[in-house]
Structures are given as C-alpha cells and as structure tokens.
C-alpha cells in the first residue's frame, strides 16, 4: 500500500497548506466529480465511435473523386458505402503517392478495412504502390514508428512475398522482423528512459495513430498486446496532465497556431473521443481508433476527468537523439545520446502550470513552461514565456544537414524558427524552476546571441491586466489569477507575424495566424541578464482579485541579475524557493534532487526508472502495465 499512502499524503499536504493561507475558501469550493460506472463510460464511448464513423461516411463527397482523404476511404470500405468513390479516390489520391511514412498509415488502414471489399484490380494497384513508391523513414521517432508500423502491417498481409514485391528489396518476413525489432526497441527505451518526443499536444496524436493500428490488426497476440499496452501508456501520459482535453505543462513540440489557441491541437479531439471532453472536431485518428476496436481502460477516463484535488505530477523524459553537440550532460542509450528532461506539473481543477528545467531539450518546437486554464474551444487560454533562440548548433544537434544550411531548411517548414517573434523553442540560456503554483525563470544571454531578448505571451483573453507600481503585473485568465514579476523592464509588443508570413513559408503552421493572435501581446525585455517570477492561484481561493494582489505583493522576493541572475522567493504556499542560474534550485533550503526523479510520479501514476512497469491508480482501481511480463493487471482494492 505504499503507493496509496503517497497519494494520500500529498493531497493532505496540499490541502493543509492551502487551508493555512486561505482557510475560508479553499476546501468549500473544490469541484466535485461523480465517477460514472464503467458501463456508462463504455456506452458513451461507443456512441462517440458510432458518431465518428457516421460522420466519415455521411460527409463523403461521393460525387467528387478529388475530395476526401484516405482515412475516409478506409471508413467507407469498412462500412461498405460509397465503394465506387472509394476505389477512385484511392487512385486519385495516389497520383503520385506522397507523404512517406504519413502515407503508409492510411494505406495499411485501407488494406485492413478493405480486406473483403477491395477487388483484384484494387489489390494489384495497391501492391504496385508498395513496390514502386519508396517512403523515406524520416528523422524523428514518430516518423520511424509510423514507417515501421506501416511496413509491418503491409508485409503481414502478404507474409510469403519475396523481396521483389517491396520497395526496399526485402522479403515480407525480413520487413516484419525489422519493423517489429524497431518498434519493440522504441517501446523498451520509452518505458525505460522516457519518451523522446514527449507530451506533445500535436505529435502525441501521431504516435497514437500507429499504435492504434498495431493494437487493432497485428496478428501475433503477444506483439499486439504489447502495442496495446504502450498505447495505454501514452494515453495515460496525456490524461494525467490534461484538463478538459487540453494538454498542459511543458511540451517537446508545439506549433505556433496551437500554442496560442491550444484547442487547435490535434490531441484535443482525442480527449473528446477517449474521455468525453470538449467538442467533436474532425481528426483522422478518430477513424483509426474506431476501426481498430480499441477501447481505453476506464481508469483513464477517471484520471483524465477527476480534478477534485490538485496534484503534482513529476515525470522523467528524454530529448530526441542528439547526433552532434550532445554535451557533457548527455548519456548513451544503445549507441545514441540523449539528455534527461525533468517535467513538473501542477494540475488543478481550473488550470495546469507545468515546466521542465530549460535548455535545448528539443529541436525547434519546445515549450519550456506553460499555463493553461479552463476555457472554451477557440480561446487563447494560455500564458507562457521563452527566450527566442535559433542556431546551427541546435539544428546540428538534431538534424543531419550541414551547419550552414540547417537553420534555413528548418525554416522552410517551421517558418518561425529563425525569428525573434517565435512563440516556442528551447534556449541554452534559460533555466526554469517550479514549485506547485510558483515558477522562477532565469536567463543569462550572451552578447552574441541570435536574439538577445526574452518575451512572455499575454493572451487577449486575459482580463484585468495591470502593471502595479510594485513591479508585479497582474491579470486574470478565466478562473485563474496570474502574477508576473519581471526582473528587468520590458515593452509591450503585438504578436504580429505579418512580416514573417510575407516570406512565403507557413502552411498549416501559421494559417490564419493574424486572426488567432490579434489582441494578444508579448512582454519583451531586452536585458540579457534577466528573469521573472510567475505566481498562479485559482480565483476560488481568494475573496477577490484585489486580495490576490495584496497577498502576492506581500510575498518576500529578492533577486539580482549580476553577475548572473538569482532569485529567492517565498511563494503563496509559504515555501522559500531559491535558484541561481546554472545551479540546482532549492526549496526551503533543500536542493531539488533531479537524479531521483521517476518516470511517473503522481497520485494517478507511478513508474520507477528502469522498472518497465507503470502503475495507474484511481480510487481503489489499479491498472498495471508490466512490460517485463507483457501483462496488464487490473485489480480493485477492497474497501476497508
């Protein structure tokens, strides 16, 4: 029972400190959650599944063979509807085939759902595509997972085929062996050292797609079961740091449009499907999920939805593999180098404040810290800061291009990468430290930095924004009060990408960006030694905005910027937080021991480093993924 004890202790401690500061409001206004029973959860999930398929079929433009995606083809093949359109669309879509590993995913879905529907001509056409189109394996783990999932499932359908049937000149058996070996290796590394492209509100979706395919169609029971287990694992990773379907905290990768309007993220529609959160929005992953027959364990529904008690979630992840410039803190896993990522999230019923330690932890699209609060779909319900950085050093760390071309080539698709107006990305000059609802960020930017500034995003949806004479900037985001204390003066700038977009690139990264960003501002500070404090509180814990401001202004704060930034701050919960740039932070005089960080450490999830075992807990339910034995253990602890 040690796990249960930890859970109880943590909640008790949180409530204790909260009561100490706000005795009249904190407990009484905690939100409630009435857990639906499993039957109800499953019934509602099936209703959503039916809706997904009916939408896919009824929205098919059966008269137009140039419209619709391959997922729609798969849905119609499964339902045996619009078959003539499906056959034609399969061909028009592949003239010529494009997308590499992104192409492989819907193609194997079509092959599986069309087993009984496709005719000999269709199969001949499909077989020819697999022989003549040579997909690139890509340069990220999501690419590879999609590639090898596609390769495995396609080869599995023709297990006796020789090398002459496949683009890469390998037989079906060879392709299956190679694909399974990679996928199992990726699983092993993920459960041992953390995911590389961790907690991405966009790319989590891209991992879930191939895992759904494997879970739904792999013939080998053991492999299929393992795929199902890692799918549960990835969904837990999302559920435990989510709020109404929004993925909170620090992220490995996020896009500009999505970072300012988080409901646009690909993960949000999955929150709707799997956990009944938010609104329906089309996502092709829905179709794979429904056709695969996958049903998430009901414990995930509770973990995603029960926010009655605030909690701290600590997680250990890793960076993507570093092929150059790995650095002294890197370590090697099976011949490739990576760096640990320490994630910390405070999950409240009304918000999630989360962060990682800072540094160049992911190429291009890192979000080192963020706040999201409960907000309607389409709102800009977020607050975050960053040091805009781009460099050939970073690019060369993660990509194979030459140092002089890598930045340019990155910006061909990630238009903002080399802009000081960028809204996401890691910085080698940033250190972030969080304790519950307080966060300290420090910056020590050299003279020759590409963009010698920091900026903090103030959403248009913030209310009551005001700059206090004390130096604090206050605002309210939905049900959350925000206090921001910059250590150096700054200026308000519009979040304006007009000039950037004129350069030509953009695509889905920045489509409609002007409308999405209009009214939001950045607080930009050009002091190279810099920093700030963020203190958050749910509005329910204060009598008024004024009382919040009064409480924050009374908090002890000392900081200095020279020779390197440092700060000591007593947060609203009474903890003294101290951090000096480049040194370990401390809480009440005790250094934070990152070396003891677990893979998952929170009230709903526990996983020790190296254990290859993830234990989910909700109330008396236990759901244990044991990759050592490739088993799932579900238990209910008897009530006392």
């Amino acid at each position, binding site marked *: 029972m040690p796990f249960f004890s930890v859970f109880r202790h943590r909640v008790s401690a949180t409530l204790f400190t909260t009561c100490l500061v706000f005795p009249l409001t904190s407990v009484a206004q905690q939100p409630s959650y009435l857990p639906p029973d499993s039957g109800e959860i499953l019934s509602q999930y099936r209703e959503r599944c039916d809706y997904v398929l009916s939408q896919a079929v009824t929205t098919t433009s059966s008269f137009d063979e140039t419209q619709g995606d391959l997922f729609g083809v798969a849905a119609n093949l499964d339902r045996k509807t619009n078959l003539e359109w499906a056959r034609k669309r399969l061909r028009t879509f592949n003239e010529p085939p494009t997308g590499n590993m992104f192409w492989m995913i819907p193609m194997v879905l079509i092959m599986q759902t069309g087993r009984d529907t496709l005719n000999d001509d269709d199969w001949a056409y499909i077989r020819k595509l697999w022989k003549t189109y040579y997909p690139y394996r890509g340069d990220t783990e999501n690419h590879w997972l999609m590639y090898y999932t596609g390769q495995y499932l396609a080869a599995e359908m023709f297990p006796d085929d020789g090398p002459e049937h496949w683009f890469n000149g390998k037989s079906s058996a060879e392709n299956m062996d190679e694909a399974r070996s990679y996928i199992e290796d990726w699983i092993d590394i993920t459960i041992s050292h953390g995911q590389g492209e961790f907690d991405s509100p966009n790319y989590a979706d891209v991992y879930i797609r191939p895992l759904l395919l494997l879970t739904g169609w792999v013939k080998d029971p053991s492999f299929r079961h393992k795929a199902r287990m890692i799918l549960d694992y990835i969904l837990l990773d999302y559920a435990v740091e989510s709020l109404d379907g929004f993925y909170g905290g620090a992220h490995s990768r996020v896009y500009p449009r999505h970072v300012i309007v988080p409901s646009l993220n690909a993960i949000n529609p999955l929150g709707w499907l799997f956990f009944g959160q938010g609104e329906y929005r089309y996502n092709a992953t829905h179709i794979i999920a429904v056709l695969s027959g996958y049903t998430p364990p009901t414990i995930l529904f509770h973990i995603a939805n029960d926010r009655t008690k605030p909690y701290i979630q600590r997680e250990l992840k890793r960076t993507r593999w570093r092929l*150059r410039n*790995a650095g002294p803190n890197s370590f090697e896993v099976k011949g490739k180098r990576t760096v640990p990522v320490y994630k910390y999230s405070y999950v409240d019923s009304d918000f999630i404040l989360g962060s990682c330690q800072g540094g160049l932890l992911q190429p291009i699209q890192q979000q080192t810290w963020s706040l999201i609060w409960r907000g309607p779909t389409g709102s800009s319900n977020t607050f975050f800061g960053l040091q805009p950085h781009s460099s050939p050093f970073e690019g060369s760390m993660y990509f194979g291009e030459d140092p002089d071309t890598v930045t340019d080539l990155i910006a061909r698709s990630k238009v903002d990468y080399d802009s000081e107006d960028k809204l996401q990305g890691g910085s080698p000059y940033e250190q972030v430290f969080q304790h519950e609802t307080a966060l300290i960020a420090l910056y020590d930017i050299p003279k020759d930095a590409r963009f010698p500034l920091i900026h903090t995003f103030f959403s248009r949806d913030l209310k009551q924004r005001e700059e206090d004479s004390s130096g604090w900037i206050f605002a309210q985001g939905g049900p959350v009060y925000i206090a921001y204390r910059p250590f150096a003066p700054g200026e308000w700038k519009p979040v304006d990408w007009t000039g950037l977009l004129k350069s030509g690139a953009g695509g889905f990264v920045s489509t409609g960006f002007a409308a999405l960003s209009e009214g939001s501002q950045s607080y930009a500070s050009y002091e190279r030694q810099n920093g700030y404090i963020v203190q958050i509180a749910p509005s329910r814990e204060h009598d008024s905005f004024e009382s919040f401001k009064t409480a924050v202004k009374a908090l002890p704060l000392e900081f200095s910027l020279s020779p390197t930034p440092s700060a000591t701050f007593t947060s609203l919960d009474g903890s003294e937080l101290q951090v000096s740039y480049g040194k370990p932070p401390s809480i009440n005089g005790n250094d934070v021991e990152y070396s003891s960080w677990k893979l998952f450490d929170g009230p709903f999830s526990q996983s020790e480093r190296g254990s290859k075992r993830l234990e989910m807990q909700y109330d008396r339910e236990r759901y244990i993924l044991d990759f050592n034995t490739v088993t799932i253990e579900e238990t209910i602890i008897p009530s006392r």
Partner: protein
Amino acid sequence: MKTLFSFFFILLFSAVELTAEKTEERVQMFAALSMTKAQESSSVPTDAGVFLYNNEGQWTRFGPKIINIASATADSRNPDTIYLACGNGISRSRDGGKTWRMTTGWEVSDVKTIAIDPTDQNNVYAATAWGVWLTRDGGESWVEATTGLPKKYSRTILLDPSDPNRLLVGTEGGIYVSHDKAQTWKHVPTSPETTVFRIKQSKANPNLWIAGTHKNGVLLSTDNGKTWASTAPTLRKANIYGVAADSSNATHLAASGWGVGVSISIDSGKTWIDRSEGLPSPHVLALVFDQNHPGRLWASTFEEGTFYTDDLGLTWYEGGIYGAYVWDLGFLPQKP
C-alpha cells in the same frame, strides 16, 4: 637518398596509376542531391536521389527515388555492385542498378559516405551520423565499428588504397585513423577536434590528402594522411564542405565552402587563390575534378546550380541541377 628513392617511387606509382586509369577505367559522374530550392512550407525536398551526368550534358536519375541520399559508391573491380548512402540505410545493387536492396536494418541510418576495399569487395565501410559501420560479407550484415571514437558523428570515410587495413574517417571530433580495418580507431593528433566534412586523397600523388572542416578551414597532409596541417590562410575559419584533388595533375587542389566560394591551389596546397567570380553563389558545398575531362572542375552551389570550369575557375559554365542541395559529386566506375 631514401627520400629521393621515395620521390621517384611515388612518381612511378602515380604514372602507372594514371596510365591504368586512362586506359581501363570508364567512369560516369554522379550527384547525390536533394531538390530544396522549391521546398516551401514543407520539410520534404521536392525531389531527391542520385543523378548521372551523361554525354549529352544531361542529368538522369539513377537508382531509387529516396529522400536523403548523400553519396554513391561502386566496386571498381565489379562496377555492377553499387552502394547508396541513404537516410534509410545502405542500399545495394548487384546488377548495375536494375534492382536494389536495403541491406541494413533500422540500426543503420543517416549514412553519409561509403568506402569499398579494393582488394576485397566484401569489406565495405560506412560513415554515418551515428558512427562507422562495416560489413565483412558484402553488405549481408553490418556491425558498428566505433571503438575509439568518442564522438560518433562521421561524415566521410576513406580507405588507403596502398594499405587496405588503413582507413581514415572524418568525425565530429576530427580525423581518426584505423590500422585494423576499422576494428579500432585513434585520433590523428595533428587533426583539430572539429567536424571534418570531407577528406580526399590525390590519385596523382597518393601522399597528398586534403580535408574540409567546420570552422577550421582546409587541412592538408603530405605524408599519406599521417599528419595534417592547416593551409589556405584566408579560409582558416571557414566551413569547408568541398575538397578535390585533380587526378590528372598532382599539384592541383580545390576547396569550397559556405560564403567562401571556390579556391584553387596549383602548387599542391602551398598557396591558394579565390576563383569564385562567375559563380552565382558563394556557398559551394560539393567539388570534384572530372575524371573524364582532365583538368575540369565541377562545383555545386547551394541551390543555385552546378558549374564547371576548364581553366581552374577563370571561367565557369552552367552544368545544370539548379535548385539542388548537392551532398556529393563523384564518379561511378562503368563496365568496360
């Protein structure tokens, strides 16, 4: 006396090799490239692969269309055996390019260059972004060969034709040498600890080697790659991606890089002169002396086309493949 003997031996060796080359080896120029110029709003080039330059002055695709092919190498004794250095791994043809097989599994990726043992075609070596890999069975199986490499990123690998046990590899940590067929590696002490993008050996003077580096300009070796020294002072801090040695003239060398165009030496690397005028871009990433046209030098700019000169850079002529990011220019032996 010993030195004098060596000098004459080298001259004799060079002459023999040159004669053999002219009479026996038919070669065709290739470019391994990605078409990036038109790549907008996408992380994927609009085209990619290996292209051969034919007698009509046209480039035609050779081998599979795969994104991220960095180089090609063929067995000089059996030109039908060809290896492609791909992002996906190492692809091999044994029938002159009619069919291809990816010989590697998922463990091998981001392959940059490949070297084949001229005395035993079963020994093949690959420099990859994740280290050196080798095969002893002609590509049927591959093993990692990074013992002694503290930084694995490897961009260029060469085998000493006079000693097939000896290889040089350009890594993120400088030039490393192996004397045991890549079983172990040792740092070449005179090589700076920086990424080495390209190493070439002069066929006309096997003692003469040239290397291009990251922020350390051009390195030169006049003792068969044993020791290295900086040359070309004006390029000393440049990123040098292209180096070339003229197989028809032992004194002619070329180097190119980012922002520095093309520089030429006509005295075996002692002095250098800039010959960038006439090129549309100062960013030149690949260089090669033409084995079919003695004295002709080819230079590929970043996305602004490939050019050639027959007068060591005084005059440049358009050579096609506009819009390409050329990873490598080289020659594939053809059947007699």
